[in-house]
């Protein structure tokens, strides 16, 4: 039955994909004509295409000794740094000594001549096709057209408003760098480059989106990352055919391994230090222009429980916190389910005194426990969603109203038992301890609760088994999702339930790097120890 449904879904998705592909292969309106040597004609064509864009500025001018050359500069007002254009393009062209002299033997109808001798910006390139010219123009470059030349010069003089580098809102730390990625991808690359000053750091550029033409970069370390992984990412990125990429989430949904899974198989982060650490482990980062969220692949499940701060703090506390995170994930997914299973099906498992307290609390409650749990969880999720979307000043009000209505009034009115409030609120708190799995945790919580309501502890166990099977079947870009627990890898286990000292973790994650020859990245024996004469002598 499900197989049939899945087949149908797959069929329709494939059909859609094929239709998309057909549409994409249709000749676009931006024809790939070459640029004509006739300036007038070129301008006419460009103006024709961009006739409804009022912010396109065209500046025609004459230059040369007796102003015998004709040229035109086209740019989009809102995207371009005008001061730079004036200073570095127009001024040299019109007032350069070379041009004012009479006896200079140079052909200024050639773009190369102008580019090499006159223009004082560094970032420029030649284009010969009209479509390339338009792409660059829309990306914020200034275009220099010279009468008599079949080529145009693209001068990148983009002006971009960028937010300052701030502490990321989603991942704040107590100890660690407070910088976060911003919307401008150039800044983000710079942030990564400052962390990894290595010649092997590769930054591959892709442009994705028929209309948005968004810059997408893959960043990885050539000598560390598995070439097959990079090839796979390239392939998957190239396969994306979409009109616009507005956020890295678009990319994520097009390249992830298991689109039907509730578990994310590509991680994201706003923190350069975190992304750099993952790149150093052999992963690849995918940076998308316009969003501070950087994707990192492959992802393993355990990563959700690791925080950058685990590595900055000393290992003991880090390990304690890590275990607390695991516990909190278990509480956040299973809390209400276990409560319902115990109080409705397995009262004999509750200690007598606790059972009596629960019975006293539930005495006036008119609903069955499962209804009670669903009501409270729904109310909590409602409150959380309302709180997230509201302006900050109103958000507080929601919190207070929620606390009074849910916490107190509902108990006093006898609608909810006080222990249910404790269960749901501790579940809620626990769900925030593992941010990467909050989404999956919320869904699992409802599934487990429903199973507990239907079949008690037996249902919860069935649900857990199903989840475990599913998790074990997941892969992220070839890496088993439950690695290093399944398949078991002892050196990988050093960073799972407890965090071993940094000097004890000398190997890169094997499942991600995959090639043994490169798995050593640090000298073993780095453990701090008092001064020993032998050590010095042997050197």
């Amino acid at each position, binding site marked *: 039955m499900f197989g049939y449904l899945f087949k149908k879904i797959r069929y329709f998705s494939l059909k859609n994909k094929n239709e998309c592909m057909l549409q994409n292969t249709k000749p676009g309106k931006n024809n790939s004509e070459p640029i004509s040597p006739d300036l007038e004609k070129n301008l006419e064509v460009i103006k024709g295409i961009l006739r409804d864009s009022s912010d396109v500025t065209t500046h025609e001018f004459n230059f040369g000794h007796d102003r015998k050359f004709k040229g035109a500069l086209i740019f989009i007002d809102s995207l371009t740094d005008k001061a730079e254009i004036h200073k570095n393009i127009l001024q040299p062209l019109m007032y350069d000594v070379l041009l004012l002299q009479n006896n200079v033997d140079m052909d200024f109808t050639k773009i190369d001549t102008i580019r090499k001798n006159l223009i004082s910006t560094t970032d420029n390139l030649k284009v010969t096709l009209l479509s390339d010219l338009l792409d660059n123009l829309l990306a914020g470059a200034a275009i220099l057209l010279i009468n008599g030349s079949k080529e145009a010069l693209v001068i990148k003089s983009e002006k971009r408003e960028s937010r300052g580098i701030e502490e990321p809102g989603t991942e704040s730390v107590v100890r660690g760098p407070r910088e976060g990625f911003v919307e401008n991808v150039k800044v983000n690359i710079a942030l990564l480059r400052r962390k990894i000053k290595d010649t092997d750091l590769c930054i591959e550029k892709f442009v994705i989106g028929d209309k948005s033409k968004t810059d997408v970069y893959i960043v990885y370390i050539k000598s560390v990352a598995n070439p097959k992984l990079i090839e796979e990412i390239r392939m998957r990125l190239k396969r994306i055919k979409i009109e616009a990429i507005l956020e890295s989430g678009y990319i994520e949904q097009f390249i992830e391994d298991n689109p039907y899974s509730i578990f994310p198989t590509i991680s994201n982060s706003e923190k350069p230090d975190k992304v750099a650490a993952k790149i150093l482990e052999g992963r690849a980062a995918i940076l998308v222009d316009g969003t501070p969220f950087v994707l990192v692949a492959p992802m393993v499940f355990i990563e959700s429980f690791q925080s950058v701060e685990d590595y900055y703090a000393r290992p003991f506390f880090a390990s304690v916190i890590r275990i607390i995170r695991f516990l909190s994930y278990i509480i956040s997914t299973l809390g209400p389910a276990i409560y319902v299973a115990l109080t*409705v099906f397995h009262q*004999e498992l509750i200690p007598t005194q606790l*059972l*009596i307290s629960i*019975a*006293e609390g*539930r005495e006036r409650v008119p609903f069955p*426990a499962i209804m009670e749990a669903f009501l409270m969880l729904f109310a909590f999720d409602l409150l959380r969603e309302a709180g997230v979307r509201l302006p900050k000043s109103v958000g507080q009000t929601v919190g207070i109203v929620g606390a009074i209505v849910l916490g107190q009034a509902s108990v006093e009115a006898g609608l909810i038992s006080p222990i249910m409030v404790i269960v749901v609120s501790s579940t809620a708190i626990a769900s925030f301890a593992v941010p990467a799995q909050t989404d999956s945790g919320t869904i699992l919580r409802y599934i487990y609760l429903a199973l507990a309501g239907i*079949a*008690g502890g037996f249902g919860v166990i069935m649900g857990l088994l199903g989840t475990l099977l599913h998790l074990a079947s997941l892969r992220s870009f070839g890496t088993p999702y439950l690695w290093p627990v399944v398949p078991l890898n002892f050196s990988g286990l050093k960073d799972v339930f407890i965090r071993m000292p940094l000097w004890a973790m000398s190997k890169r994650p094997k499942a991600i790097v995959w090639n043994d020859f490169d798995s050593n990245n640090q000298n073993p024996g780095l453990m701090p120890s008092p001064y020993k004469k032998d050590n010095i002598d042997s050197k």
Partner: protein
Amino acid sequence: MGKKMKLSNMKLISCFLMLFILSGCIGAREINDLEIVIGMGVDKDENPENILLTAQVVKATAGKASENESRGEDSKAFWNVSSRGNSVFDAVRQITHKTGNRLFISHNQAVIFGKDIAKEGLQEYIDFFLRAHEMRPTALILIAEDRASDVLNAKPETEKFPAVNIAKLIKTYGFTSNFYKVNMEDFASCLLNPTKAQLVPLVSIIQDGEYKDVYVSGMVVFKKGKMVSKLTHDDVRGLLWILGKVKSGVIIVPSPNEQGKAVLEIIKAKSKVTPEIKDGKIVMHIKIREESSLSEQTTSENLATNEAFEKIQEASAEVIRKEAMAAFNKSVELNADIFGFGEMLHKKYSKEWKTLKDNWDEIYPTIELNIDVETKIIKTDLLKKPASPSE
């Protein structure tokens, strides 16, 4: 191929769903619909055919009721509901006429049998408690000096529930070792043993002014499931000495100068029983090792000397030997193998046991005990010598 796949998927899914339906775990019952039983008492009814079952049920409103309204006569946190029936299970079901809900006996702490029932024989009444799936094998079994319902009615001062209070009394037996804890499982395993006699704690009520206090007054000896006699506190400790199950307790011996007493607290005790059949006679060699501390003395003489210690140790060994012998003599008098000597013989002399077991009743009184006690005082707690001017 495709059709086949679909079929197997259907099969898989239906198998999965059947797991839920056929598991037998489906038995949702809200807490509100339960009568949580924490103690049960079984007595004989006036009509000798019937029994009177008393169930102590938790009143869910108790917490609030005692705070707000009541202060009056009905401020009890529990409800003792009773019913008559031909058998225990009959009575358990009859109770629903009064409660409206069925009894939930998983949290039953103790089952108390009236003395009249104990004399008649527990086997026929205990069957339900061993058979019922909700009942825990760890629930305590007790005998009431008079009627079980009275014991369940005596409201304790600090505990909310009489049954919980009684269970607590029994579980703290280690402080005196004057009785010990017996639960359903222990008792059942003993019923299966043809030679061993089982002991069950006895609870009585003493009227203390207007209050009724429940206390554990000793233990009851069962032979073949029927109550035969009572054991006093000292007898039970003698039994525990031999079995090596004394946890703690107090030994009082006269001080060496015979002017006062030395009071010892038992810290550790163990024993080893080695049966021996010699020329057709059965001798049990019992080695008891005990360590204690000097916890109190009522003489001003300094007892913390080697000489005094040796005398006290000897005296305390004598006390232990006497207690053990008294227990044994009592068991001979009752002809009840409360120690489980039969089992020990069975283990060591399995061939001989085949002939012994058939006339165990005749053989048991002829058993000889060879008790060897070694005691040691290992500390004197916080004082080195008594707070009196030394001479």
